[in-house]
């Protein structure tokens, strides 16, 4: 794979997540009527980080956090030859009457979020749904979907590819921009 351009270094990476956490505390206090839902795969490491950090910052150990797999709700099934592989789904609560904070790493076309909203309906009628994303590729949207909390905004061409790397998976925290996928 070609070398990507570093958009966010490890130091700024941590600061960015810290800033999102403080924004969330300002808006949601102790998170008593809130649940976090990380979208598999990319949203889960971000969700893990945010929820762990919020537990330390607020002292609330009971923050609700689920991991949602959207594979079976995707709109591109059978449209390409790639097999869509499902991932573990861990939702041990319903979202009925709760404020849901949906988490994904990169907001690109918006189709993942659309699928996540469909999947979420199977767990009840949420009071509100907001979206947290580390990277917002704001000019590449196919659907009218926007993020409420954003780590950084990236303006890139359609064929470009943004990759978030995580310390616990890839050995380092950084965001990379590639001219094209692979």
């Amino acid at each position, binding site marked *: 794979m070609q070398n990507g351009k570093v958009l966010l270094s490890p130091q700024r990476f941590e600061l960015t997540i810290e800033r999102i956490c403080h924004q969330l505390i300002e808006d949601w206090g102790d998170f008593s009527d809130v649940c976090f839902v990380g979208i598999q795969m990319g949203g889960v490491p971000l969700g893990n980080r945010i929820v762990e950090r919020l537990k330390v910052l607020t002292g609330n150990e009971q923050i609700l956090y689920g991991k949602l797999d959207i594979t*079976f709700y995707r709109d591109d099934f059978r449209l390409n*030859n790639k097999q869509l592989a*499902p*991932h*573990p789904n861990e939702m041990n609560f319903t979202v009925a009457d709760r404020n849901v904070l949906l988490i994904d790493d990169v907001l690109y076309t918006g189709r993942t979020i659309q699928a996540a909203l469909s999947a979420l309906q*199977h767990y009840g009628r949420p009071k509100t749904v907001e979206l947290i994303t580390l990277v917002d590729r704001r000019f590449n949207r196919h659907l009218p979907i926007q993020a409420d909390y954003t780590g950084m905004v990236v303006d890139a061409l359609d064929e470009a590819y943004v990759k978030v790397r995580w310390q616990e998976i890839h050995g380092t925290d950084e965001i990379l921009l590639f001219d094209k996928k692979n």
Partner: protein
Amino acid sequence: MSSLSTRHLIGIKNITEADIQLIFETADNFKELINRPIKKVPSLRDITVANIFFESSTRTRVSFELAEKRLSADTVNFAASSSSVSKGETLLDTVNNILAMKVDMVVMRHPAPGACVYLADRIPANVVNAGDGTHEHPTQALLDAFSIREQLGDLAGKKIAIIGDILHSRVALSNVFCLLKLGAKVRVCGPPTLIPKYYGDLGVEVSHDIMDTLRWCDVANVLRIQLERQDIKYFPSLREYHQYYGVTKSMLESLDKEIVVMHPGPINRGVEISSDAADSKQSIILQQVENGVAVRMAVLYLLASKG
């Protein structure tokens, strides 16, 4: 992620170990899904599946239909007894007529071995074999192996006994192929008249001693005596069969270990297995039925993505 090596599921003989593992991994996700409050996903919303049953079936037909509905597929059911087949229409004509109504997948059970291969070679839809005569019943073998994996973990090296009417059983043949591909040791046990001579050549042990087999195995998969296929007398009476080859609770209790008891259904209680053994805590018969839906969802999902 890799995909299946085939567009049709005709038999376990034609698929690879990687295919089986892929089906299991996908079925794990579907098992979690069918235990949610809302058990439906939209994956196959643009697909129509025809369930064509030329032989009677309860479990398999209901299980396939539930799997299809939980994936949001449209389904049409067709039973040979109430159709134009009884007016003399051929299999290919019947199926082509159904396909002309734009059906994407066909799930078929047929009394003739090889009926699904015949069909798969001639029609554009994906074909899933739900049992063809005494040949194969692949989804049953997959759900049996999936259930064993759930109980005992990896199947490699595990000792699995298949007991009963091996001669007429498509479940036995598919199970043997599937278990051997997963690295398990397999023994078939039954009266000499109900075990075909070539079975030894498949790489399985053959035994006619039920107690010795139960002592040997980790899992006993007890098969039904197929009363409808006993065209000649293979054994003197059902009572005598039960006496020599029936599995009872006292036999299970006399073993120095706890083995897993399975049965693909329908059970002839008091013939191949006694009621107290079928209902004992070692029996996973109802888990097999539950897993059947998850495994069939995985098969349909993976085949549908092959187009």
